[in-house]
């Protein structure tokens, strides 16, 4: 696999290469390499403290907001290392969107939330409205909010807020969407709807999902990567990993002997 030449069709859209992240006390990620091909959903699973959140945050340089971490290695996005000094993290985050554990809607209207990223680049209002509608449809929220886009976003339910966050990230048309345990704060019904949204989105986007829930990985992912204390233990098609894991640690995690 040579990610440097893999732009265009075929190769991975995003690829972490020899990524090592250290805090003062310990190594959080140790020489981790992983590819994310187009139109796929990769679930990154592992026990808590395995570094999976740090890993997903390193894929769009959000990790740099945590002070005191040193980052080595590279993350190649369509042939370009996003950690190259000439690359502005702001541009990275516009191309590689992110959804967080808890819904983090801004205290304003539904429309303004979805339009947040668009407003920054000053598009005319028709374009913004069109993109907002498209994004809300993709995230499966449109039917629920289309009659009153001016209601406060905080009046939505938790699951709706999380789908609004997904729509907000989609509205700026990234290629890659990072989902950091997006359902951990939601009830089962809301989780189901968010999972359905993910199923639909993986047709068109590269999705990376961090989850501690093996069941969720089984339901939505094409590929599973299992992390344990900063190491990538194994990676492969979802069915292979979950049904016939090669490593003992993976086996233990899947059968619930961790946590």
């Amino acid at each position, binding site marked *: 696999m040579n990610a440097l030449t893999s732009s265009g069709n075929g190769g991975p859209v995003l690829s972490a290469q020899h990524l090592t992240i250290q805090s003062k006390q310990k190594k959080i990620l140790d020489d981790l390499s992983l590819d994310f091909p187009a139109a796929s959903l990769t679930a990154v699973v592992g026990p808590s403290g395995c570094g999976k959140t740090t890993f997903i945050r390193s894929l769009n340089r959000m990790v740099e907001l945590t002070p005191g971490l040193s980052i080595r290695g590279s993350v190649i996005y369509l042939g370009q290392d996003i950690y190259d000094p000439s690359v502005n993290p702001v541009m990275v985050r516009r191309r590689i969107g992110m959804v967080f554990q808890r819904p983090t809607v801004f205290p304003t209207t539904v429309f303004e939330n979805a339009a947040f990223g668009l407003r*920054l680049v000053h598009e005319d209002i028709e374009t913004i409205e069109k993109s907002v509608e498209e994004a809300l449809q993709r995230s499966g929220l449109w039917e629920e909010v289309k009659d009153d886009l001016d209601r406060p976003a905080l009046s939505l339910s938790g699951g709706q807020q999380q789908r609004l966050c997904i729509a907000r*990230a989609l509205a700026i048309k990234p290629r890659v969407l990072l989902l950091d345990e997006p359902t951990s704060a939601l009830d089962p019904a809301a989780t189901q709807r968010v999972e359905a949204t993910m199923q639909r989105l993986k047709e068109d986007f590269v999705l990376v999902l961090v989850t501690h829930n093996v069941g969720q990985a089984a339901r939505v992912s094409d590929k599973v990567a299992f992390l344990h204390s900063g190491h990538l233990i194994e990676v492969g098609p979802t069915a292979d990993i979950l049904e016939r894991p090669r490593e003992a640690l993976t086996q233990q995690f899947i059968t619930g002997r961790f946590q």
Partner: protein
Amino acid sequence: MSATPTPEAVESREPLPPPSSPPAETTPPRRTSRFRPAQLIPFIPALVPAALIVAVIAELVVSTGFTNFGLSFWGPDWLPSPSVGTPTFGILVFITGSFLTAIPALLLAMAIGLGIAIASTSYLPRWITRFLDPFVDLLAGIPSIVYGIWGYLLVAPFFGTVINPVIYRYFSFVPGFGGKAPLAEGVGLPVAIFILTLMALPITTLLIRDSLRAVPRDLWEAGLGLGATRWETTRKVAIPYGLRGIVSAGFLGFGRAFGETVMVAMVLNVVPAFPINFYSGTSTMAAEMFTQLDSAHGNGQFLAALSEMALVLLAISLVVNIVGRRLVSHFAVYEVPGL
């Protein structure tokens, strides 16, 4: 840095029973316990601050002797001891002067404070702000008389010989900036406004910084995660979120500048007249009250007029402070004088 109790600790505490009642454990439930005045004793000290405020207001009201100066009290003529005719006590000049110094100072302090607070929360790393932030706090600790002597002897001559002449030379076509040439001593509105800005700056900066720091990390990250720059995240996420705190900073900073006494009395070139242009002196309520009490000693009518002016100043200060403090439920900063 600041001692902040957790909200739970402050919000829902059962008050203690009065100490004169025996401890709960040994008390059989007596519903018919008779009220004893001694039970009130522990509550009395708690009334200290409220009693002081009430006493200040009451004393000032009494000191006015209920003298009615009529409409001329709000007029422009302040002639406490004229050579001919009866004294006139109109405080319009001082009200104007107070606003004329406090509002520009507040606007400057808000703008600079916002900039410093944003730099401190969004741009600079922690190890740098740990070193820089205390300077702003220290600005609050300098006594106003020390600001005054520094302002009168060093800053004012600098304004008088450098800044004011330049403004006079190039902007005298602007109404209010031309006319009589500025004094070389430099005392007057610009110096007073400049130093008032410094004195209001710690209040505005600290409160804005606090309200920006109170913005949940999740929201910062959500903004940055959508590809907003630090500036855009601050402007579109953090500032709207912390708006009440920022407005409160405006009110309290204004209160500080509006009530400032000694420094203004030293650098404003206090004269009981409207300013003739940007460089001239005028007077504020606080400065006039401070400098004139001596002359009024023994003069009943003059004292009455000053008391009424004190009530006006106090009333405005109270309103501004009540509004400013109501906007924010909990202040984290207590170690800063005047806050």
